[in-house]
């Protein structure tokens, strides 16, 4: 399948003619956490090409890269009509003064060549026009890919990731995918299918046929596997879906309902809720031995578990205090000193008005995203694992089910913006400013992000 094909990456050999250039300086970082984060002024002129056919590929690549960068809200992409220097080449250092005068901070130069064997060669370099030096891309001066043109979109995403990483200091996330539930039909007879698409909405495809309701898919952090819940055998059960083979399997056969699955950060386990005789508790299953361990034993509903990146802690939803709230416990079940006082196996961390649920630990470890319901409205927010620093990022008639981008900088969720509205996918950054709706084929809910594909 497409994503399995290897991209051939090599240092840009031709870059050696600039071996005399000054070494890379300290990276310029964009402060994403500040609401006043300035946009980074980037020029990304159309790539050069050796034939009209190559030019068509080049134009697609630059369009995809610009769209990726714009979607973050962090980059101001300068309009081509303001460009002074037109004779750009990936082999030649640009005239920095021509770019500084139009306030360019970074300049990306690329070219596309269709080679004799029909493959496509894409070369790209990124320049710091203020410091008059080259930005390193994954530690190299420039990037070059030789691949077939069907990998065009991935090459574009990888290059956009290079720019993002080079300028912000954070891992890029454009070369990634979104798994979600595609919905159709009337609300009283909804058809729900497992679906997947690129992070930018391209290449959407269905993974199940809609015969059975499927819910809450989540990506493995380590391979091309999805865990989700399905009514396939009548009783709701947690399943695994292998994207490469298209095969699915039940994750054990239990008397009660299993639901709300998520992979552990190492990808070796699935943590989930299981209901026996009406009572839901948290369990974890080792995927190799298929051995299952019970983690909570409480008459309340315990559900929606999510593990910290180091695997030592678990955040989950419980109504043991009367309403659904977020609780944090140790993976080994040992006692904790709770931030709100006292010692307990599980410490409540949310105390605002209303109800909190669907917690998801950021891959960076610093924040937990959640759905909050108060005063008849729904909110997506983040809170620190000790219950400090709660911030609400979105509000709507229904906002539900946050999931993190692989770098922990963006949250994807689904929204019904008014009563009776169809669900759609949205992304928002941690400032809450950059709210965007994603295009999906039809209605969509329950999004989850893949790890970056490399």
């Amino acid at each position, binding site marked *: 399948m497409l994503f399995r094909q290897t991209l051939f990456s090599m240092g840009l050999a031709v870059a050696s003619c600039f071996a005399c250039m000054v070494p890379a300086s300290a990276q310029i970082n964009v402060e994403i956490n500040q609401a006043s984060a300035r946009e980074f002024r980037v020029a990304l002129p159309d790539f050069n090409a050796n034939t009209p056919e190559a030019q068509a590929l080049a134009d697609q690549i630059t369009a995809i890269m610009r769209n990726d960068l714009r979607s973050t809200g962090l980059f101001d992409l300068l309009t081509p009509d303001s460009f002074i220097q037109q004779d750009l080449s990936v082999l030649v250092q640009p005239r920095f003064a021509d770019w500084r005068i139009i306030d360019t901070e970074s300049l990306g130069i690329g070219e596309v060549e269709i080679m004799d064997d029909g493959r496509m060669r894409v070369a790209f370099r990124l320049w710091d026009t203020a410091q008059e030096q080259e930005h390193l891309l994954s530690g190299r001066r420039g990037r070059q890919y030789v691949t077939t043109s069907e990998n065009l979109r991935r090459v574009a995403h990888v290059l956009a990731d290079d720019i993002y990483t080079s300028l912000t200091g954070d891992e890029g996330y454009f070369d990634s995918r979104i798994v979600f539930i595609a919905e159709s039909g009337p609300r009283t007879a909804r058809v729900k299918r497992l679906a997947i698409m690129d992070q930018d909405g391209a290449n959407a495809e269905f993974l199940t046929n809609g015969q059975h309701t499927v819910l809450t898919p989540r990506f493995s952090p380590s391979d091309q596997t999805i865990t989700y819940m399905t009514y396939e055998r*009548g009783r709701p059960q947690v399943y695994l879906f292998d994207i490469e083979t298209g095969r699915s399997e039940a994750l054990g056969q239990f008397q009660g309902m299993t639901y*709300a699955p998520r992979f552990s950060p190492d990808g070796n386990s699935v943590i989930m809720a299981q209901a026996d*005789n*009406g009572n839901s508790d948290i369990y974890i299953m080792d995927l190799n031995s298929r051995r299952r361990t019970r983690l909570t034993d409480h008459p309340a509903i315990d559900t929606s578990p999510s593990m910290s990146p180091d695997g030592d802690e678990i955040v989950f939803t419980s109504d043991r205090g009367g309403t659904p709230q977020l609780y944090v416990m140790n993976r080994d079940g040992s006692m904790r000193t709770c931030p709100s006082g006292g010692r307990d196996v599980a410490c409540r961390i949310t105390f605002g008005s209303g109800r909190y649920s669907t917690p998801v630990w950021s891959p960076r470890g610093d924040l937990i995203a959640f759905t909050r*319901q108060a005063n008849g409205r729904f909110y997506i927010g983040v809170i620190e694992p000790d219950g400090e620093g709660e911030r609400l990022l979105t509000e709507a008639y229904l906002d539900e089910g946050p999931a993190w981008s692989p770098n922990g900088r963006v949250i994807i969720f689904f929204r019904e913006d008014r009563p009776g509205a169809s669900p759609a996918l949205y992304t928002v950054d941690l400032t809450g400013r950059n709210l965007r709706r994603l295009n999906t084929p039809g209605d969509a809910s329950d999004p989850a992000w893949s790890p970056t594909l490399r």
Partner: protein
Amino acid sequence: MKNKMFKLVSVAGIALALGACASNPPVEEEVAVTTPPPVRDTTPPPVRDEVVTSREVVQGPPPGTVQDFIVNVGERVYFDTDRYNLDADDMAVLNRQAAWLQAYPTVRIMVAGNCDERGTREYNLGLGERRANSVKDYLVSRGISADRIETISYGKERPIDGRSTPEAWEVNRNSHTQIVSGQVG
């Protein structure tokens, strides 16, 4: 709305409990009160279609059939927001369900717990499971073998009223008792 529905249904239920099949209230009235007009019920159709004769139209569905259960006993009980406890109205319906299940001992049922849309998917799956088990536990307490009762939670996935209104939420918070096998006819 909830109370009105159940009081009227209870009248029909008492008639049944007394064995007064011949004196059942007119069918039209029962249908009118057990099916609130705006509600579109999309639960799967009965396991098999009834063969309705003119005599049965007058006298109501034949005893022991799925239609008999739906019309004369009541297939749903309704819950308050976030709650899974049973009130007196619910118990009246479930007492009739228990009596009916005693009368037809080969019948097996599936109790499905449902929630309104004003909660998150995963929490509602847990809540629906609780609601289904509240009904199961009550029926067991009334002498019905637990072996005859399966439960399932649909969370907020199966609303019977697709609108986003308080009236819709009220009917969508329910436990639905469905006959899966062993019925007459």
